[in-house]
């Protein structure tokens, strides 16, 4: 029904526009006044003619004609043609629009401070300019419509909008548009908007940034529907402030010299997320749908970086980072690349995430505060080695990392806290954030270091988690708690699952694989006075449990196994899960199993039927 009304309304508007139109031409600018709207057009002293509030100097008018041109209210059309451009202005907005044309450089000053005829002004760009620009100033929201424009600017930004109000950048359906700015300029971006920018439409926009960012907004940016390709940027692909929100569409970013997308806090204090993002200044990133593909290559660059929090609720997200680590002189610390990075919290509740980081110190997901995963399908692979700026300043690659551990003092004789390693380190630490996993399907692999690491607490209460690493597969710098879900830690160089504080297993299904002696399948920081507590859940541990483990309400025993064989773990007569023993360990031939009822395993020659989990190392009965 809505479509019918829209169609009828459009039809009426189109029909209503048919009639006589007075065209007033001033150089390459044509003002079009529909006869029905003009009223009295007044002359004054033989010097000026004023039409619908627009005053013309008669000496500037090169021609006036009357024809039957249809005029769309509120529309200003800019047509580029090589080294020149023409501008056509609808009569009802003529008094508010002052265009200036110099070759193919079109600059428009917009003066209205309220809606015109209940609508905003639309600037529609089309044609090709080999050296041109569209510049817009003003103080009221408007729309910039890209309707098949190929704009290359030799002296600055291709589009430079200094209007600080909300700009709707609409990429017209069925059109392909390309913006290219000059190299070595002073502009902030190829496409710059001082104010909020809502990017939408069902067309395609290609952006080539030769001086700094590809796209920059001084306020927030939202993306909906359009296909956006940023093929080059000296700085970030997209850089904005307040917040960034991707609702749908396809965004592909490559060839950038810094981050793919970076969102900064505009002011000094975050508002946090607000209802409908009204007046929000948070530095947050919201990935809510669409297809996002980012490839970054620079040292310590980020695929998507949030100054505040990051929320991933849907979408198909593919991010690859290939740069190595670098020393950050501001923070005096070593930094690696990262696919998704939030300086605050990160919440992943949906979507399909395929993340890969190959450089030294590279990570796939990192939240400095709390990383919460409640849904979605995540594949995170970090293949780099450690970045060393100095012996004490390093950045280690991780697939997934959350929380922050901060050294606060060096107290002689101190216990050192969970991360202190007992008497080996006197440094006192504070812990903030951590990792909370309540759902989702996670594949995390780090070739040389921990696959999943929390620098504070780590809790898993749901989902399917597979972690494979050359170091601890999953490590918590503080307490590690499992209450539900399916968790496998597969290490080829250290413990399967490790807590630097206490380790609590209260439920769930756990399969831990350590690499070799003296590592263990499930470890806690016994040296620091901490312990592994198992009070529930079904556990199979290649490499066994921490020696001083505390078991309550469960029974454990040691059983033999063969590498590459399939087993089903049972608690009493109830099958918990089936698993295949990886071939990458050197832990001997026996493993520890632990369940609430009498534990046992039965072997199979091949994978049993059911739902495959844990990267093919597990099977659970299909519901």
């Amino acid at each position, binding site marked *: 029904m809505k479509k019918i009304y829209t169609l009828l309304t459009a039809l009426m508007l189109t*029909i209503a526009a048919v009639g*006589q139109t007075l065209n007033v031409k001033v150089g390459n600018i044509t003002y079009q006044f529909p006869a029905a709207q003009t009223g*009295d*057009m007044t002359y004054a002293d033989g010097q000026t003619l004023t039409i619908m509030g627009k005053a013309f100097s008669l000496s500037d008018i090169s*021609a006036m*004609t009357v024809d039957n041109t249809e005029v769309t209210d509120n529309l200003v059309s800019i047509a580029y043609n090589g080294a020149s451009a023409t501008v056509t202005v609808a009569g009802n907005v003529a008094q508010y629009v002052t265009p200036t044309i110099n070759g193919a450089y079109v600059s428009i000053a917009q003066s209205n401070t309220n809606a015109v005829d209940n609508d905003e002004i639309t600037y529609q760009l089309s044609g090709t300019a080999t050296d041109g620009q569209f510049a817009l100033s003003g103080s009221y929201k408007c729309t910039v419509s890209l309707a098949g424009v190929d704009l290359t600017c030799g002296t600055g930004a291709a589009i430079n909008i200094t209007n600080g109000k909300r700009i709707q950048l609409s990429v017209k359906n069925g059109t392909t548009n390309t913006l290219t700015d000059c190299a070595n300029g002073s502009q902030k971006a190829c496409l710059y908007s001082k104010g909020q920018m809502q990017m939408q439409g069902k067309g395609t926009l290609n952006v080539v940034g030769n001086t700094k960012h590809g796209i920059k907004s001084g306020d927030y940016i939202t993306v909906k529907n359009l296909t956006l390709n940023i093929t080059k940027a000296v700085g970030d692909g997209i850089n904005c402030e307040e917040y960034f929100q991707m609702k749908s569409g396809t965004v592909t970013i490559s060839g950038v010299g810094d981050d793919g997308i970076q969102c900064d806090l505009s002011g000094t204090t975050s508002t946090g997320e607000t209802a409908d993002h009204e007046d929000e200044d948070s530095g947050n990133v919201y990935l809510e749908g669409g297809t996002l593909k980012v490839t970054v290559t620079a040292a310590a660059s980020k695929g998507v970086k949030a100054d505040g929090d990051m929320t991933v609720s849907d979408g198909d997200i593919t991010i690859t980072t290939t740069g190595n680590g670098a020393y950050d002189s501001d923070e005096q610390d070593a930094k690696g690349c990262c696919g998704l990075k939030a300086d605050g919290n990160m919440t992943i509740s949906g979507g399909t995430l395929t993340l890969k980081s190959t450089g030294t110190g590279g990570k796939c997901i990192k939240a400095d505060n709390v990383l919460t995963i409640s849904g979605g399908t995540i594949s995170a692979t970090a293949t780099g080695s450690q970045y060393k700026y100095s012996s004490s300043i390093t950045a280690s690659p991780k697939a997934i990392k959350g929380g922050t551990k901060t050294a606060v003092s060096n107290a002689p004789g101190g216990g050192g806290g969970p991360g202190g390693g007992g008497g080996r380190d006197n440094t006192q630490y504070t812990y903030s954030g951590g990792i909370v996993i309540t759902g989702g399907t996670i594949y995390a692999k780090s070739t040389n270091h921990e696959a999943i690491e929390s620098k504070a607490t780590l809790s898993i209460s749901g989902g399917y988690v597979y972690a494979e690493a050359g170091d601890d597969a999953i490590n918590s710098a503080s307490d590690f708690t499992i209450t539900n879900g399916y968790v496998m830690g597969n290490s080829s160089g250290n413990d399967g699952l490790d807590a630097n504080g206490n380790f609590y297993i209260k439920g769930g299904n756990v399969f831990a694989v350590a690499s070799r002696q003296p590592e263990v399948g499930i470890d806690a920081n016994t040296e620091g006075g901490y312990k592994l507590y198992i009070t529930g859940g079904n556990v199979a541990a290649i490499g066994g449990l921490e020696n001083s483990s505390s078991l309550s309400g469960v029974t454990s025993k040691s059983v033999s196994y063969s590498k590459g064989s399939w087993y089903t773990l049972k608690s009493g007569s109830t099958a918990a899960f089936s698993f295949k023993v990886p071939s990458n360990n050197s832990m001997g031939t026996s493993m520890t199993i632990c369940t609430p009822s009498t534990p046992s395993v039965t072997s199979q020659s091949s994978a049993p039927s059911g739902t495959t989990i844990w990267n093919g190392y597990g099977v659970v009965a299909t519901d």
Partner: protein
Amino acid sequence: MFCAGLTAVMAEDYPYLTFELTDGTKASVSTASLTLTMNGTTLTTGSQSFTLTNLSKMYFTKTDMSTGIKSIENGELTIDNEIYDLQGHKVTKAQMKKGVYIVKTKDKTYKIAVK
């Protein structure tokens, strides 16, 4: 709704662009393929020329709003026209001699000169 839109089309037709001079005189020109040309102090459109300083305003009209002395053929006057001399006396077509007369037609009033 659609019909309302269609009605609007008919109402939007303005076949004349009327110029009004500072002395109140009006001159309408057809808007069909109309071109207005300015040359120095003169605006020319079709057979009409206006000194820019004499122009007060212009507007689109649905009828010819022209006023002022107008040359018309004697045969164009019909029996329905009311004709007055400059003294206000009603005269017949046959009584008209050389001079200026006011002629009221069904649609408008002309000031005419009989030569």
